[in-house]
C-alpha cells in the first residue's frame, strides 16, 4: 500500500513534478495493487440543516483509478455530499473522513491541498482569459518575478496532448464550447496532479459527440490513477464508464453496487421506493373542458411539444434538470421565442410574443427563481402585488391607498407573515415571498397558471399552504401547469404528468401510471427498458 501523505504545498512544486509524472504515467505499467489503493473513505457522514436532514449515516469510499458514480433524484443529497468532500460543508458530529488512511477535517483549503478538485455543473471560469491562463489562474509559475509563460504553455500542451485534445493553450475560454471548457477544467486537475476529481453533472446540455469525447477523456484520466466521483442523471453514462455506483435517496445510502453485472432496471428500483402514504393527500376536483393547448411547440430548446390542459386540472411536467422544462414554460408565456407550433387558449390560436399579451390572455407565470425573476425585492408587498395587473387596468393614475388595500387583502387571505402590506419583500422569508408572487398573479385574475418549481427552497409548513392554495385555484375552475423536480410533489399533486428529456416530451402518464418508477424510467433511462 502506498502511503503518500505529502500534500501539494505549492503550485510551483506540483508543476515542476507534473510533466515528468505525466510521462511516467503514460509509459509505465502500474502495479495492480496500486490501482486499488484507497484514496478516500467516509464513515457515518450525516448533515443536518435547520429543519432538514440532508444526509444520514453515509459511508462512501473511492479507490485510485476508479470511477465511482453517485445516483439519485434531485434532492437526494448528492450535492450535499460533494460539498462535504470539497470542504464547503462540515459533516455533523461523529462523521469521519479518511484521506489515504489518515483522518482529516476537510476545509476548502485543505481539500485543494490534498488534491481534491470539484468540477461543478456551472463553469467557474474566466471567459476573457486563455486556456492556459485559466489552468494556472491563481497559481501561476513565476520566474524572477515575471510570469514564466513558456513553461506554463509547455505543461498545458503536455496535458492536452495526453488527453488527446487539440485545443490551443492560447484559445480564449469564452470562445470554447461547454464541452471544451469541461476538458480544460479536467486538464487543470492533471496539471496540478490532483488525486480526486469530482464531476457534478458534467454532460448537462452537451451534444452526444461532446458526451462521447468527454467520457473518453474521463477514462484516460482514470487510467492515469486518479479517483473520480461521477454524478449524472444519465444512466447510459454511468453504465458506460462507471466501476461502482452508490445510490442515494432522501439523504440515505440505498445501495452500493459494482456496475459489472448490474441492470438498469435494478438501478432504477434502488432509486425509487418511497412510501406513497407519506405524500401530501390532495383533494380531487372534477376536471372540465380543454382550456389550453400546445401544438408542436418548438423554440428555446424545447422541441415539438404537444399537450392539452383542462379546466381544474394540474398537469405536472417532470424531467431531470436541464431537460428543457423551464425553457418550454418561457415559450408558452411569450418570454422566449416560439419558433414553430401553435398555442391555443379556449380553442383559439393566440399570438404571444411577449408576457404582456400572455397576461392579457389570462396566463400567470410563477417562475422558478422568484428573487431574480419574480419579485421587486426592495419594494413593498403592495407594490409587488399590483405590478402585473397594470396591464389590465385602464386608469393612468394609481393610488397608493388602493394598492395598500389590495396588498393587505392578500396578506390576510394568504396568511403572509408580515406586519402589513408596506413591509418590504426583501425582509420576508422564502415561503412568504412565494406567497407575494402568488398574490401578484391572483390579482391579475388569471385562468391558466404556470408554476415552475412552486415550492423550491420553502419550508414544509409553507409547502402545504401553497398546495392548498393550488387546490383552491382548481376549485375556482383554473388550470395549472406545474413544473417540479420534487418527485413526491409531482406524484401527489398532478392529474397527469408529462415527462421531458433533452427538450422533448418522452411520455405522458395519467392515473395509476403516475409512479416514481415510471417517471424516472422515462426521464433517465433508455427507451429500451
Amino acid at each position, binding site marked *: 500500500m502506498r502511503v503518500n501523505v505529502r500534500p501539494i504545498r505549492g503550485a510551483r512544486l506540483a508543476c515542476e513534478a507534473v510533466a515528468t509524472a505525466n510521462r511516467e504515467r503514460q509509459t509505465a505499467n502500474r502495479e495492480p495493487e496500486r490501482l486499488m489503493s484507497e484514496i478516500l473513505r467516509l464513515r457515518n457522514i450525516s448533515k443536518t440543516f435547520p429543519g432538514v436532514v440532508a444526509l444520514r449515516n453515509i459511508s462512501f469510499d473511492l479507490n485510485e483509478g476508479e470511477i465511482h458514480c453517485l445516483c439519485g433524484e434531485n434532492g437526494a443529497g448528492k450535492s450535499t455530499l460533494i460539498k462535504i468532500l470539497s470542504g464547503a460543508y462540515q459533516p455533523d458530529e461523529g462523521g469521519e473522513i479518511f484521506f489515504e488512511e489518515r483522518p482529516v477535517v476537510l476545509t476548502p483549503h485543505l481539500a485543494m491541498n490534498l488534491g481534491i478538485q470539484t468540477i461543478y455543473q456551472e463553469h467557474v471560469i474566466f471567459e476573457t482569459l486563455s486556456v492556459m491562463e485559466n489552468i494556472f489562474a491563481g497559481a501561476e509559475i513565476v520566474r524572477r518575478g515575471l510570469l514564466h509563460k513558456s513553461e506554463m504553455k509547455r505543461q498545458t500542451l503536455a496535458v492536452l496532448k495526453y488527453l488527446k485534445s487539440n485545443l490551443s493553450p492560447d484559445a480564449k475560454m469564452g470562445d470554447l464550447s461547454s464541452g471544451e471548457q469541461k476538458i480544460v477544467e479536467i486538464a487543470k486537475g492533471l496539471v496540478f496532479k490532483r488525486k480526486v476529481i469530482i464531476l457534478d453533472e458534467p454532460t448537462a446540455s452537451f451534444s452526444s459527440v461532446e458526451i462521447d469525447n468527454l467520457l473518453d477523456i474521463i477514462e484516460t484520466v482514470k487510467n492515469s490513477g486518479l479517483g473520480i466521483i461521477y454524478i449524472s442523471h444519465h444512466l447510459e453514462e454511468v453504465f458506460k464508464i462507471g466501476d461502482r455506483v452508490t445510490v442515494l435517496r432522501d439523504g440515505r445510502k440505498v445501495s452500493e453496487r459494482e456496475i459489472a453485472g448490474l441492470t438498469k432496471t435494478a438501478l432504477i428500483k434502488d432509486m425509487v421506493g418511497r412510501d406513497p402514504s407519506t405524500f401530501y393527500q390532495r383533494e380531487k376536483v372534477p376536471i372540465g373542458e380543454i382550456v389550453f393547448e400546445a401544438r408542436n411547440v418548438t423554440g428555446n430548446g424545447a422541441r415539438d411539444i404537444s399537450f392539452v390542459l383542462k379546466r381544474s386540472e394540474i398537469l405536472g411536467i417532470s424531467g431531470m434538470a436541464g431537460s428543457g422544462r423551464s425553457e418550454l414554460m418561457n415559450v408558452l*408565456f411569450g*418570454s422566449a421565442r416560439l419558433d414553430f407550433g401553435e398555442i391555443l387558449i379556449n380553442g383559439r390560436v393566440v399570438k404571444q410574443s*411577449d*408576457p*404582456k399579451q*400572455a*397576461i*392579457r390572455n389570462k396566463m400567470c*407565470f410563477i*417562475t422558478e427563481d422568484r428573487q*431574480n*425573476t*419574480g*419579485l*421587486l*425585492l*426592495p*419594494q413593498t408587498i403592495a*407594490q409587488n402585488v*399590483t*405590478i*402585473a395587473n*397594470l*396591464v389590465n*387596468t385602464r*386608469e*393612468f*393614475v*394609481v*393610488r*397608493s391607498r388602493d394598492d395598500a388595500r389590495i396588498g393587505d387583502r392578500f396578506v*390576510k*387571505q*394568504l*396568511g403572509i*407573515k*408580515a*406586519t*402589513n402590506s408596506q*413591509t*418590504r419583500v426583501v*425582509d420576508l422569508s422564502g415561503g412568504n415571498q412565494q406567497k407575494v408572487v402568488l398574490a*401578484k398573479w391572483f390579482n391579475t385574475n388569471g385562468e391558466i397558471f404556470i408554476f415552475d418549481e412552486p415550492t423550491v427552497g420553502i419550508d414544509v*409548513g409553507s409547502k402545504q*399552504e401553497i398546495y*392548498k392554495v393550488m387546490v383552491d385555484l382548481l376549485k375556482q375552475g383554473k388550470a395549472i401547469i406545474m413544473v417540479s423536480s420534487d418527485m413526491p410533489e409531482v406524484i401527489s399533486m398532478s392529474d397527469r404528468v408529462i415527462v421531458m428529456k433533452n427538450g422533448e416530451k418522452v411520455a405522458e402518464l395519467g392515473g395509476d401510471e403516475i409512479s416514481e418508477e415510471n417517471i424516472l424510467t422515462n426521464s433517465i433511462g433508455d427507451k429500451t427498458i
Partner: protein
Amino acid sequence: MSGEAVVEPKPAVRTSLFKRYENLTVLSIFAGFVLVIVLLQLIMGGGAKFPTFISPVNLLNILQQVGVPGIVAIGMTIVMISGGIDLSVGMLASLVSIITALGISKWQLGVVPSVLLGIAAAVGLETIMGFIISRTKVEPFIITLGGMITFQGIALLLCSSREVIMNGELDFLKANLIQGAKDPISHLNLIIPPYVLIFFVIALLGGLLLSYTKYGRRIYAIGTNPQAAYLAGIDVKNMKLSAYVIMGVLVGIGAVMLLARINTGIVTLGQGLEIDTIAMVVIGGTALKGGKGNVVGTLIGVFFLGSIGNAMNMLRLPSEVQFVAKGLVVIIAVSAGDVSNRISGFLSRRRELRWHAEQRATKGESVESTK
C-alpha cells in the same frame, strides 16, 4: 388557511422615522448646513445684522440659479430611477441653445419656431440615444458619454466655434413676475422670473408622474428588476426609451431658459450641467443602480447644491472652496443615506424576527389548546 385563525393581532408598527420618510436624512443634513451658515454669519456680523443668507432676496436669488439645473435634474431623476444615466445633458443643452439662437438671429425663423426647433432637436437626439440604450446591452454611461462628445462637436460646427449673440428676443422669459416687490430687510428688488415657475410646475408634474401613475410604477419596476418587470408584462425597452424622451423635452426647455438668461448661444453654456444634475439627484437619495429615489429628494438636492456656492459667497470665502464643499456634500449625503438605511434595515429585520418568535410562541400554545 388553517394558520390564519391563530395569527395574533399585529403589534403596533414602530417604524423608524428615517425609514418612513426616506428623505429625512438628507433633509436634516441640509437643515444642519443652513443652520451652520446662519450661525457663522451671526458670529461674524457680531450678532447685529440679519443673516443675509436666509433673507428673501437671497433665497430668490438661489432659486434663479438652480431653476435650470433643477428642470434637468427632474429628468435625470426619472432616467436614473429607470436604471439609466445621461452624461450628455450639458452638451445637449449647449447645442440646443446654439440652434435656438441661430434660428432667431441668423436663420430668422422667428422666436417660437426657433424655440420649438431647439426642443425638437433635444428630443430627437435623446430618442436616438434611448433607442440604442434600450435595444442593445451597451451601458447608458458609454452611449451618453459618446453623445456628450458628439453634441459638443455638432454645436461647435454649427456656430463655427463662435458665440451666437441675440438681441434679447427671449427676454420675456426672465421678466420679473413680481415687479415692485421689495425685500423688507434689505429693501432690494425681489425677482421671480417665469423659468422659476416653470421649474416648480415641472417638478410638480414629475413628482405626480412618478408617485401617482402607472407610468411611475413601471419606471420604478424596471429600475428595480428589469427581468421581473418584463415577466410582469411591462414593456421594458419602450419604458427605458420613454425616460430618455422625457429627458429630451426637459433638457430642451432648460436650455431655452438658460439661453434667455445669458442672451447668447455658446458652447460653454451647459458645461458641467451633467455633473451638477447628477450630484443633485444622488444627494436626493436616488440610487445609481436604479429603482430608488423620488422628486422631493431631488428638490432637496437641487436647493442644497445650489445654496452651497451662494453660502460660500456670503461667508466671503474664495469661490474655489465651493468645489470642495460641493464634493464633500455629495460624499457625506450619500454615505449618510446608506448608513441610515442600514440602521433602519437592521432594526426592521430585528423587529420582524422578534415578531415571528412571538408568533411561534403563541401559535404553539394555541395549537395545543385547539387540539
